[in-house]
């Protein structure tokens, strides 16, 4: 990877995994945004395009919610374990409460994701934005909200930063893909993930 001066300075500042947080509450302060080069590093290295059908994945999550299967969050397996095999990152994106409006505190993060997706290293890849929630509230509501929030992120990347819509898909998995099932209400479960899912386009 070729890095500019900025990149060299930024390296090593952030070690967090890349998942986009879908936090429901107001932050007291703007968080330190993940760096572009950290995002690039985490999303690189997909060896082969996985056999992934996003519409089917959406359906699978909906069916599990409707059938009330895996009712106990503590024992709920991830609905899409296959995503855990792919290059991905988790990052916090703040939204207005119970809405899909991205808060200004997260504009910089969105900009940095756009910067990463435009870098030559990632230019030929496609990505899936995965919205998630913690396990408080109603499962079906959470599923819908996380889809709307994932769509918002995708729309911002496409409309504001002109990332090709062909490279971006969005899915909401609500509380069906808990990051930390042992602590169903913890904020980390609200993170959105960006997953590398296609190469080369």
């Amino acid at each position, binding site marked *: 990877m*070729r*890095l*500019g001066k*900025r990149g060299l300075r930024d390296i090593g500042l952030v070690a967090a995994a890349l998942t986009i947080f879908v936090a429901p509450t107001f932050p007291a302060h*703007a968080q330190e*945004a993940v760096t*572009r080069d950290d995002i690039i590093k985490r999303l690189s290295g997909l060896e082969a395009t996985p056999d992934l059908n996003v519409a089917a994945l959406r359906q699978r999550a909906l069916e599990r919610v409707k059938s009330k299967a895996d009712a106990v969050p503590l024992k709920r397996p991830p609905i899409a374990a296959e995503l855990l095999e792919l290059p991905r990152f988790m990052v916090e994106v703040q939204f*207005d409460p119970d*809405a*899909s*409006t*991205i808060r*200004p*505190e*997260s*504009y*910089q*993060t*969105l*900009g*940095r994701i*756009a*910067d990463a997706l*435009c*870098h*030559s290293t990632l*230019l*030929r890849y496609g990505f899936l934005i995965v919205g998630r929630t913690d396990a408080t509230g109603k499962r079906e509501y959470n599923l819908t909200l996380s889809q709307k929030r994932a769509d*918002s992120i995708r*729309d*911002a990347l496409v*409309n*504001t*930063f*002109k990332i090709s819509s062909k490279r971006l898909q969005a899915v909401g998995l609500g509380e069906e893909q808990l990051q930390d099932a042992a602590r169903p209400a913890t904020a980390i479960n609200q993170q959105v993930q960006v997953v590398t899912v296609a190469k*080369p*386009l």
Partner: protein
Amino acid sequence: MVRSRSILLMLALAAPSLAWAETMSFGDAAAILAKSCGKDIDANCRGVNFDSSRLKDCLSRNQDVVSAQCKADYARSFDAIQKRIAARAAVPKTCERDIVKLCGGDRKEIAKAVECLLAASGVSAKCNQAIGDAGYR
């Protein structure tokens, strides 16, 4: 001797500027918008998502009430984002000759061409600058 030294000096001065992007990163441009206009967006553009044209419309509609800081910065931020997008769109044309000469290339497959140009030596200054401005580097 004097001449060669002055040539070296010229090269030293010129080399870094070739790599300096004249555009701002999306992250920095978005950070300016959030910092200068975050409160104004909350107060006047509630529910407007992070969509540059809708946000810009909302802020300009509310010119009379937004803070001086926001008024001074929002157009600059959106312009910076636009400039970066335009820089990306300009690469195939600006680098056309380099792509043909160095990468045997099809400029329609821009991702491949950019990878090749970044690895190639002898890329023109103009093309090199365009690649940096686009944020490919």
